[in-house]
């Protein structure tokens, strides 16, 4: 059984994104969840599946939303690849007939609560890094991922300015979004002048730490047609895990991520080619991670990500507009759920100033520690 076209995104909801919400993760997620359910034209009692992210559990949603008969709950612990992987899990549960409307909320107070760079030290997927690398001073994701980028630069001539183009393009898109944390324009000179964090990553190569929540509702395709908004149909979805998934140091090819394994599966399931993709929301915890995924997805060859982005391809109006909402780099770090929400808006024609004209088919990815990948291809229904 293929998951092709078995599910659709029917609702999206977002809180205001900020650096200090002063609110609990659960209250943020409940607000976004209610918005997503209302956006779908559903009632909370219609929700019969929940895939929570970290910090809260399915029971919290039963209790607060008053769900009378939750039939499906699961977790997808793939770090930043979790949200798109959760779509796969939701569609699989729907296709199996377990449930009809799955709520997938993500929320965090990453800025005002525990900072991401500190919190990762306690996460189970960091166990090996915690024992063998953190005591030597390799502590944060910026440091752990930087050698991937450095090797790419040495092998292929990739430059810091090319990484900067991703930051600049993403910021320009955030400027068009009324709900973005970063509101000042960025030039390539601003990027080059930003302080070095862990070479080759400068401050503006790194994503934000944010407060807020974003939630989506995934519904059975046949039920999605009658709801409030045009459905956004999941054509293909897949996850992939890299070799040496827990430790980048030991990975045979440090420039290849888990999404390289997932992408052919998703494209085959969807039955589309790269040229069919009108818009792409690419997980952007760091600029380099966007470039590497563009290569691993097959939008350009390995090593050609630098020239690809430098050509303006990922700009609005370019060949493949990327992160039209401002991404984790400039809108907010919502673990990539904001990428799914943006793709839904693009395919509904609701993306406002950042709308890609006639966007019919789009792609969204997730990337999680230490290289897990997930990808979904969706179409306007």
């Amino acid at each position: 059984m293929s998951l092709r076209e078995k599910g659709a995104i029917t609702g999206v909801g977002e809180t205001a994104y900020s650096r200090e919400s002063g609110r609990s993760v659960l209250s943020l997620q409940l607000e976004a969840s209610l918005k997503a359910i209302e956006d779908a034209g559903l009632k909370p009692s219609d929700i019969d599946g929940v895939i929570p992210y970290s910090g809260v559990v399915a029971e919290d949603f039963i209790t607060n939303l008053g769900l009378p008969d939750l039939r499906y709950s699961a977790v997808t612990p793939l770090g930043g690849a979790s949200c798109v992987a959760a779509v796969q899990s939701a569609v699989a549960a729907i296709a199996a007939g377990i449930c009809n409307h799955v709520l997938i909320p993500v929320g965090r107070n990453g800025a005002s609560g525990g900072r991401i760079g500190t919190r990762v030290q306690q996460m189970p997927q960091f166990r090996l890094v915690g024992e063998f690398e953190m005591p030597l001073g390799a502590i944060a994701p910026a440091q752990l991922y930087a050698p991937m980028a450095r090797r790419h630069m040495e092998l292929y001539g990739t430059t810091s300015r090319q990484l900067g183009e991703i930051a600049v393009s993403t910021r320009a898109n955030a400027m068009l979004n009324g709900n973005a944390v970063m509101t000042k324009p960025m030039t390539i000179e601003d990027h080059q002048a930003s302080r070095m964090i862990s070479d080759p990553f400068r401050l503006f190569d790194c994503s934000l730490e944010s407060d807020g929540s974003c939630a989506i509702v995934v519904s059975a395709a046949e039920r999605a047609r009658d709801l409030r908004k045009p459905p956004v149909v999941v054509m293909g979805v897949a996850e992939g895990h890299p070799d040496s998934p827990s430790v980048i140091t030991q990975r045979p090819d440090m420039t290849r991520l888990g999404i390289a394994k997932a992408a052919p599966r998703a494209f085959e399931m969807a039955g589309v080619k790269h040229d069919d993709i009108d818009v792409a929301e690419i997980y952007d915890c760091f600029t380099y991670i966007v470039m590497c995924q563009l290569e691993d997805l097959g939008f350009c060859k390995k090593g050609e990500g630098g020239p690809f982005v430098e050509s303006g391809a990922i700009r609005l109006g370019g060949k493949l507009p990327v992160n039209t909402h401002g991404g984790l780099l400039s809108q907010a770090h919502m673990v990539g759920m904001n990428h799914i929400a943006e793709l839904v808006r693009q395919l509904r024609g609701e993306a406002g100033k950042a709308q890609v004209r006639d966007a019919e088919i789009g792609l969204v990815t997730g990337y999680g520690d230490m290289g897990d990948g997930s990808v979904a291809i969706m179409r306007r229904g």
Partner: protein
Amino acid sequence: MSATGTYNKLVPEPTPHSAPYWEGLNRRKLLLQKCRGCGRIRHYPQPMCPSCHSMEVEWVEASGRGVIHSWTITHHAFHPGVREDLPYTLATVDLEEGVRMLAQLRGVPDDKLRIGLPVRVEFETVKDGLTLPYLVPGEPA
């Protein structure tokens, strides 16, 4: 070590699988797991060989020689304990035994860093019962 003598960096929590590795460092030896089933060397320590699924291991001493695979130069203190070390270079190294290690690299100017640069392992006891590896320029094998 800070001026007051208290060690304020992150410290490892050895497991039954990794304890021989840490004990080896205390004897200034870099020890690697070698599968008794098929002879494959693996790192970091794990309970099972992914090739033959044997859980029997012996520990072999690495030569300590290798070449740079990649690196990063850290300018930001992600933990209070590393503030005095900034900036520091973390090198990923292909060891002669076919596995990699990561450690701080000392004595190589930033503009001399390159893939393939020979390095070798040294050891320093940073606190009672904890010896860590670091890297210095090495001779070509």
